[in-house]
């Protein structure tokens, strides 16, 4: 009996030793951006992906939440210096920092979301947000009774304009006469986390007659959704599935699978299958889409669902081409 226990103990300790050896061998790291990892949106999607990786592989990851722009480069370099095998930077704003640090640490793998860094050890993951926004734009126009829909963006950058352009295209695809209001929260990174301003912008759009608003604004969106609840109107979430936040007033969410991108980057690096280069994820690749679950089931009629699903297939087959924002 004693012997059995001993061998059992040995087995356990062996297992522990093996897993800790694994953990010591492989050390992934992630650097979140200004919205913070609990922005319920973009950064949180990345966080969810990292957490899933931790659950499945048992490997802990290191993380850092950037609270001021000067911290990005320091955080990324710190991670690389401390022996991280892969460092994932969340958000376009980290591109310059990733580029700089990736050159200093050519043996470390890096990944960047929403931007392209052309280096042999960097994987650049970009999404075709306009395609996903097209689908929720359709949903907005189909659900709107006033024929007016709104968009609240975070920081005024081409990426967010791309969301807006796809959204407007989708809404016009359903109803050519639809009026689309567009507002940006600001021109600095603080615009990602200003729910008070988001709520004000949403109220102003509701005041002008909009009855569905799509927010692509990170943490600022929380204020937009709250304004929709307070005003008895509809809102559309972004990046993460945000339908659960306010069941009954969240029409749907534009899913941007940052979580999958982060998880895959970690997994590939762990299995030595990391590839550099550009990954462009659209509707066809399952990188973007729209959310339908128990929280918004009652808001989406079967006819709406059928039309949006048809459009999704048409985008995949190339029958519908979403232009997005072409820059200026």
């Amino acid at each position, binding site marked *: 009996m004693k012997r059995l226990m001993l061998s059992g103990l040995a087995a356990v300790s062996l297992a522990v030793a093996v897993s800790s050896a694994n953990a010591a061998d492989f050390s992934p790291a992630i650097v979140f951006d200004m919205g*913070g*990892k*609990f922005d319920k949106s973009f950064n949180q999607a990345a966080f969810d992906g990292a957490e899933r990786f931790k659950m499945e592989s048992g490997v802990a990851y290191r993380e850092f*939440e950037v609270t001021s722009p000067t911290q990005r480069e320091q955080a990324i370099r710190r991670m690389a210096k401390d022996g991280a095998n892969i460092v994932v930077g969340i958000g376009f704003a980290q591109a310059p920092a990733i580029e700089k640090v990736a050159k200093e640490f050519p043996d470390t793998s890096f990944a960047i979301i929403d931007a392209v860094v052309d280096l042999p050890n960097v994987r650049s993951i970009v999404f075709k947000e306009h395609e996903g926004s097209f689908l929720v734009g359709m949903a907005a126009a189909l659900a709107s009774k006033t024929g007016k829909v709104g968009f609240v963006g975070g920081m*005024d950058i081409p990426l967010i304009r791309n969301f807006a352009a796809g959204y407007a295209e989708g809404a016009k695809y359903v109803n050519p006469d639809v009026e689309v*209001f*567009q*507002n*940006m929260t*600001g*021109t600095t990174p*603080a615009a990602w*986390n*200003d*729910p*008070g*301003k988001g*709520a*004000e*912008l949403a*109220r*102003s759009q509701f*005041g*002008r007659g909009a009855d569905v608003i799509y927010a692509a604004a990170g*943490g600022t969106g*929380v*204020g937009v959704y*709250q304004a929709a609840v*307070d005003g008895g109107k509809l809102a559309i979430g972004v990046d993460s599935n945000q339908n659960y936040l306010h069941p009954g007033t969240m029409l749907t969410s534009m899913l941007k699978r940052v979580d999958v991108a982060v998880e895959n980057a970690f997994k590939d690096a762990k299995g030595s299958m990391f590839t550099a280069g550009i990954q462009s994820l659209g509707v066809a690749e399952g990188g973007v889409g729209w959310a339908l679950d128990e929280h918004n089931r009652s808001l989406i009629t079967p006819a709406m669902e059928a039309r949006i699903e048809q459009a999704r297939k048409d985008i995949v087959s190339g029958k519908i081409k979403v232009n997005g924002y072409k820059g200026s």
Partner: protein
Amino acid sequence: MEEFFTMIVLIADATLRVSTPLILAALAGLYAERSGVVDIALEGKLLGAAFAAATVAAVTHSAWLGLAAGITFAVALAMIHAYACVTHKGDQVVSGMAINILVAGLGPTLALAWFRQGGQTPRVEGGARFHPWSWPGAEAVADIPVIGPIYFEIISGHNMFVYIAVLCVPLTAWVIYKTRFGLRLRAVGESPEAVDTAGISVDWMRYQALIVTGILCGIGGTYLSIAQNAGFLRNMSAGQGFIALAALIFGKWRPWPTMFACFLFAFTDAVQTRLQGVDIPGIGIIPVQFIQALPFALTVILLAGFVGKAVAPRASGIPYIKER
């Protein structure tokens, strides 16, 4: 025309909503500065009250307990300020800045430890939040032209705090100019020696002023977290305490002009929000960057051109030391 009128009404409505924390904080600053204590910690007190109110409201599900907590915390911060720079004659700007920095870090850190949501409090709903009041007959008259929208949008349908903030202005004017407390408060800010000679404690007057400051900031902060928004977020006061301070100087330390200065700041903010992407006849669509610079440009122009000399209370910022 119709659309233009609606826009005006909606802007007025938003101005009231946005100006509420500014008015409360500016009046709070008015009491402190009129008593001779410079208070740049308005920002920190707003933020601290927002945090305390949201935390207590989230845990107890009672908005009123949240309000009590917000006020208590803001008064406590004001007392730290008073202890440092009235009792111990410390530098008022340094003490104020210390409080701002303390609160900016303390709130998110405690929220992270207690709620594990990245430095936010959980969302507050229902009874844990102050909701707008709808006035009698607002729905009924909403369709009457001109008067209907004005009553429905501007007068009715605001949060309790909006009315409190506006009512605090005449109240403050009365207290400052018509009561014995007000006379002593002004005297202690202009000429503390005279007050001391009259046998009134300068320190106690300043403590009292800072208690009022704390209460007003507490109400303002509570409005931010559990009335205007639904929960505490990192740095959610976003510089409004400093804007309130600017409005106070703009209003030359007088209640009514200060309120109008707050309205002006809130108005430019509301206009800025609404002018984005709107096609103005004859001008076209104004670039976003220009619109967003508008409040600041307007502030500079008004401050430089129209306000004239702003003279602070004479003893403001100077600790009172007996028998020098």
